[in-house]
């Protein structure tokens, strides 16, 4: 019969030789193999102290960007929420009042902006949909939490710290491991 796969091998039914029946040569060979592993490099990454480097295209937790003057870029247009295949994003818009020009870039801004990190599939479509370059996926990932509520990230969790006033917080939110 023609074999259905190229990887099949004929089962050998020949009786074991004396050396094979003694088991000992095979056992010593195996012990040699395990012993050689003592000198092998361990691939372990000791997690909290060491972290694996992500690739530059890693899609992690979202950040809400600021412009050069430190103003929030988001105008609450809702395109990210529409683009989101997991329907993880909700937002409420508000109008910028006089005197808030240093906080928000446009006349309209997001008063509430929430992403449910349990729904989010980190596809990055929100990032592509945003006309204002306001939402980006960073190179960090969501830490564990005790409650489901804890995974609904609001603006305080996501708006990136100002580079000028808080460069450390900015780097942390951006989460590039090369900076950690």
């Amino acid at each position, binding site marked *: 019969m023609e074999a259905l796969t190229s990887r099949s091998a004929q089962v050998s039914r020949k009786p074991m030789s004396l050396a094979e029946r003694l088991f000992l040569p095979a*056992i010593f060979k*195996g*012990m040699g*193999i*395990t*012993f050689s*592993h*003592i000198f*092998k*490099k*361990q*691939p*372990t990454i*000791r997690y909290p102290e060491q972290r694996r480097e992500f690739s530059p295209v890693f899609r992690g937790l979202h950040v809400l960007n600021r412009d050069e003057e430190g103003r929030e870029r988001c105008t609450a247009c809702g395109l990210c929420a529409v683009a989101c295949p997991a329907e993880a994003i909700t937002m409420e818009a508000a109008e910028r009042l006089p005197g808030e020009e240093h906080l928000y870039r446009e006349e309209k801004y997001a008063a509430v902006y929430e992403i449910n990190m349990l729904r989010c599939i980190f596809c990055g479509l929100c990032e592509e949909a945003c006309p204002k370059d306001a939402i980006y996926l960073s190179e960090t990932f969501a830490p564990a939490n005790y409650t489901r509520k804890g995974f609904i990230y609001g603006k305080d969790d996501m708006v990136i710290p100002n580079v000028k006033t808080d460069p450390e917080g900015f780097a942390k939110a951006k989460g590039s491991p090369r900076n950690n």
Partner: protein
Amino acid sequence: MTLLVLDWLLIIEKLVLIAIIVFASLGIALYTTFAERKVAAILQDRPGPERAGPFGLFQPFADGLKLIMKEEITPNSSNKTLFILGPGLAMTAALMTCAVIPWGASVQLFGRTIDLQIADVNIGILYIFGVVSLGVYGIMIGGWASNNKFSLMAALRGASQAISYELAMGIALIALLMTTGSLSLKTIVEQQMAPGHLWNIAYQPIGFLLFFICAMAECNRTPFDLPEAENELNFGYHQEYSSMKLGFYLFSEYVNMIMSSAVMASLYFGGYDIPFFNEALLPQNIAALVGVGALLIKIVIFIFIFMWIRWTIPRFRYDQLMNLGWKSLIPIALVNMLITGAWILAKL
């Protein structure tokens, strides 16, 4: 005023010796559990426990604390007395072996000559055999009292395994005893220390191999760990055990390992003999202490080999185990005995 005509100092001396040896064996066993995890890890390219204390050295205490804090469960349908007796018996039998092992030569202390051996019984090896056979009761009683089919099956396996391998072990040992002409462990060690006399491994290589394999089977170490086969018997005879009772079972395995290593070192590797070195050149006390160190190093090497084998080869199937014991080891041991007898006759 003497109440009893007894050498009270001798009794105190022996009590102190017993305390030291028992606690030292327990301490070594404690760290053997740690070493087991570490060796397993290193052989598998992992770092192993390294969080508790420097290099994870406090890990055994963390493990022990965990076991003590666990809830103590006694199954309703179990035989309560036997259920408690099982782990105790396993531990006692494991520790009792240390009585006849010569841990070192004698030291001079406070004007007394103290033998570093609890009891120099002239039938030391028979005593060890008796105690090792008792060890199977720990498994048997534990498995029976749990009233659980897996435990019972594991206990039966353990008992039949121990009985089958004791035979081959005994016959391998008879060949050794024929060359030494003594049953006392102290005498056997001193014979090996005598100038011009090699270690017994040189005269009994096959006997040692058989003894080693059987010792592994007696200790229920992989590849002979059928009584506690995790993946077929749900941890076997100690399935129903929890808390420190389970700890006793796990711990007695390590004590057993140390004791069988000590016995093997004494019988075949010169006990407290330092290789290529004449102990008589040193002052008596220092020579004795160095000898104890030498024995400990031999024990550690044996324990490492035990672990190394455990993390290399898989478990035997039950029929393979019985085939190996009855159809291979016992015939080889018998032939070995015949050859030894012929050799002794030829030498006369």
